[in-house]
């Protein structure tokens, strides 16, 4: 921000100020004090804020994420999401999808651990990252070693792999996208596309 006080901070500050002044002005000083002790501190004030972007459509609304440390896991847990009023496009608003994005992050159907389903198997089983990554790397290399085409029938160098494919995401970051591209082309993958095709 190039201004000292953001609109969002201003709104929060103005709200708190108005409540305090109104009670005080009416001569309820003690009442106010007693009342104040019953009020828990404003939760959002103690949370870590991060500026983020809604993961859904490409209006790409600004969001403020609020998180705090989980005493058990020591991980930062997301506790609240609201629209970023400083964002020039959404100006603080979120739609029914964005407004519920906290439940997306906390969805019960998030994948938490590497899972593996054996050929012909009837369930997913939890495996370690090392098992999964070693196995997938081996499968890719096996396919590449067996099917990679260095030259076409005319003898031209083509260095392509058509038997392993990759569909890229649409909500991952540009940075992940670039690494995905580099990964795929380095292996010779031409079966490469992303959600934009649809």
């Amino acid at each position, binding site marked *: 921000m*190039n201004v000292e006080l953001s609109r969002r901070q201003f709104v929060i500050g103005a709200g708190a100020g108005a409540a305090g002044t109104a009670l005080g002005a009416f001569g309820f000083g003690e009442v106010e004090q007693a009342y104040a002790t019953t009020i828990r501190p404003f939760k959002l004030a103690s949370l870590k804020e*991060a500026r*983020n972007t809604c*993961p859904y*459509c*490409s*209006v*790409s609304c*600004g969001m403020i994420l609020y998180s705090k440390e989980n005493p058990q896991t020591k991980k930062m847990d997301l506790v609240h999401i609201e629209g970023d009023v400083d964002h*020039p*496009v959404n100006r603080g608003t979120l*739609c*029914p999808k964005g407004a*519920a994005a906290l*439940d*997306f992050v906390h*969805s*019960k159907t*998030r*994948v*938490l*651990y*590497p*899972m593996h389903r*054996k050929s*012909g198997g*009837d369930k997913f089983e939890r495996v370690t990252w090392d098992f999964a990554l070693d196995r997938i790397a081996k*499968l*890719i*290399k096996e396919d*590449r*070693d067996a099917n*990679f085409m*260095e030259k076409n029938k005319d003898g*031209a160098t*083509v*260095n392509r792999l058509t038997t392993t494919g*990759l*569909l890229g*995401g*649409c*909500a*991952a970051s*540009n940075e*992940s996208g*670039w*690494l995905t*591209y*580099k990964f795929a082309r*380095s*292996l010779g993958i*031409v*079966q*490469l*596309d*992303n*959600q*934009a*095709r*649809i």
Partner: protein
Amino acid sequence: MTNSWTDIQNADVVVIMGGNAAEAHPCGFKWVTEAKANHGAKLVVVDPRFTRSAALADFYCPIRPGTDIAFLGGVINYLLSNNKFHKEYVASYTNAAFIVREGFKFDPESGLYSGYNADKHSYDRSEWEYEIGPDGIAVLDREMTNPRSVMQLLKQHYARYTPEMVSSVTGSPKDKFLKVCEYLASTGNGERSATFMYALGWTQHTHGSQNIRTAAMVQLLLGNIGVPGGGINALRGHSNVQGYTDIGVMTHLIPGYLGMPNDKEVDFKTYLGNRNFKPLQPGQTSYWQNYNKFAVSFFKAMYGEKATPENGFGFDWFPKADRSYDHLAQFEDMHQGKINGYICQGFNPLWSTPNKNKVAEGLAKLKWLVSIDPLETETARFWENHGEFNIAEPSKIKTEVFMLPVGCFAEEDGSLTNSNRAILWHEKGADMPGEAKGDAAVLAELFVRIRDMYKKDGGKAPDPILNTDWSYHDPKNPEAVELLKELNGRALTDLADATGKVTRPAGQQLSSFGELRDDGSTMAACWIYTGAYTSAGNITARRDNSDPSGKGVHPNWGFAWPANRRILYNRASADPQGKPWSEKKAYVYWDGAKWTGADVPDYGPTVSPDKNVGPFIMNPEGVSRLFARKFMAEGPFPEHYEPMESPLDNAFHPKTKTNPAVRIYKDDVAQLGTTKDFPFVGTTYRLTEHFHYWTKHVHINASLQPEQFVEISEELAKEKGIASGGWVRVWSKRGSIKAKAVVTKRIKPMMCGNTPVHVVGIPIHWGFVGVARKGFATNTLTPFVGDANSQAPEFKAFLVNIEPASAPVA
């Protein structure tokens, strides 16, 4: 988007067609509301359904699914035959004055252009070109009266699109169609502007690209491209689908819209030689003439120090594509058993690809499948039996499957590119759950393992892998900042100007793609992203929301490619002398010494207007194209073709009903239905409470819209004996789904000539994983065929039948 979300506030007329912004892009739609409230802009909605966008419109016109070209072609005819186009803009900024070769013809009887090869379903497009003089310069008739001029050919082509014809093909009442024409025509004067907002309602057709081209042509005729409140605005559907396209995660791309080399491009010189972009008019910018600099800088990012002038910057190591390997082609290959392994990164193809049963058969032929996704997907669980929702026999499916957990938006740093090309950095707000890793880390871990195996054990063609530059601080977990810096690019040696003065020391981040070189002294993975992370730091993290011009430009909020321009082609907001077309629409103009105004000029900053350099600086002709030359598969002027499955014949030319250049596989032809068995038009869409197949995992959204339904008119409900709230079966030649029926006044039968056409509206959001009630893949119904240019599948118009049914059994 040529323009931006916030620029919509400058529009006088907003046309929403092929989209439904009020429901699918609600927070972007607010800029339509601003335009209406602040200066009386008019909203016009053209849609088969009376959507919530339509409910807020000043004028609504219905249209039969898949007939947008007939409608917009009619608008072109209206503008030309009533002399309601922006004459100076058209004469100076489009190719209306260019002369087309004698060999180019369109036969209105057959509905075909010259050069058609019926066996190959494609055209020899070599004659679809300008007449070129002996000096290599295109021939013009400034009067535009030559019968071979683009203007005259255009008039002739669309003269057939009379209001009567439009109405009988589209089902739009003639008076309503004409009213839309009038709204648009009110902007063809430089004083007012109109914008088009569209989404997948235009792209998901076998003539999707041409739908968009027709609208772009309307906008060019009206002088609405490059001006505030104008443009042709694709409302993209996913938070970074723009970025993933920019970065080229697509079969045919190198980052920054460079082309993938093919088998005939046997060396780097041949590849570059095929892309020389020689100007077709004297003195034109033809900015793609810098292609070599962008390409060399990309290969330097790909192969680092190993890319040298001697080895063509590593060109040989890079894969060459002998054909398109687009998403549909991939699933055709998979269905034929030609793909062994498949990685889905944040993609649920079983649910999002046409003809779900074909996709499921294909997945079952894979040896292995990897899903890298924050959520469980139907694709990862395709082998599970879920009764009617997903019939499968796990023991018979041999595919080995992995689900790898990754973080989501809230759990990572990085940048996303929104629909209007604005790249904005976001910050991690929480830790990832369980053992999830970042998307980049998963692929980096795999890459390092594969590379180490090739180093240690050898294998086939190790060079492309071993020579890939992977010099990240932590090769198994490159940081987002490192990768953005690589996308932006840096000087590899000291860069000096013509006098020998060093303008950029070695190692420093570049500020602009103007600094890129073709000698290997610069690297940049994606030239259009140069400027995103400069020596001044992370430009995408800028959060100054000020708007000095008051036109919704917000120039210091993030970074918009290219070169932080917020409206593309903005030189065209001024007349040929450099003066704004009107004071009200002043945006970028000539001040006597330089171009200035609200935005970064899309033009040489000091090129004076008397140099006659056209505003469309990427095109070798310097002007925009009403005539698309050889760049579109089915013809230089969009022509009305029916969807692959349609209840009506092609009224323009019964001999050619559907797009003659469409690519369709043999098995899929056999799976097309006809009106005999499938008399109704199906069309799929989203709801405002849901996002594709993600929000069925989200408690609140699953509560808001818990259960699958389809929408039909009261008339169709009566005809088929369907009660609102009752179960129905909807089926096509490819498969069957069940859903609750919502009988609504928002969908009405349309009269096309004497034929009533009923539409069945099919929202897409349910599946067999998540917390919403179980539902069917709506793509069980859709045909496996795509747009002739982009291969986007035809989800918006296909044939179905419907009947009352009993509840599904899970």
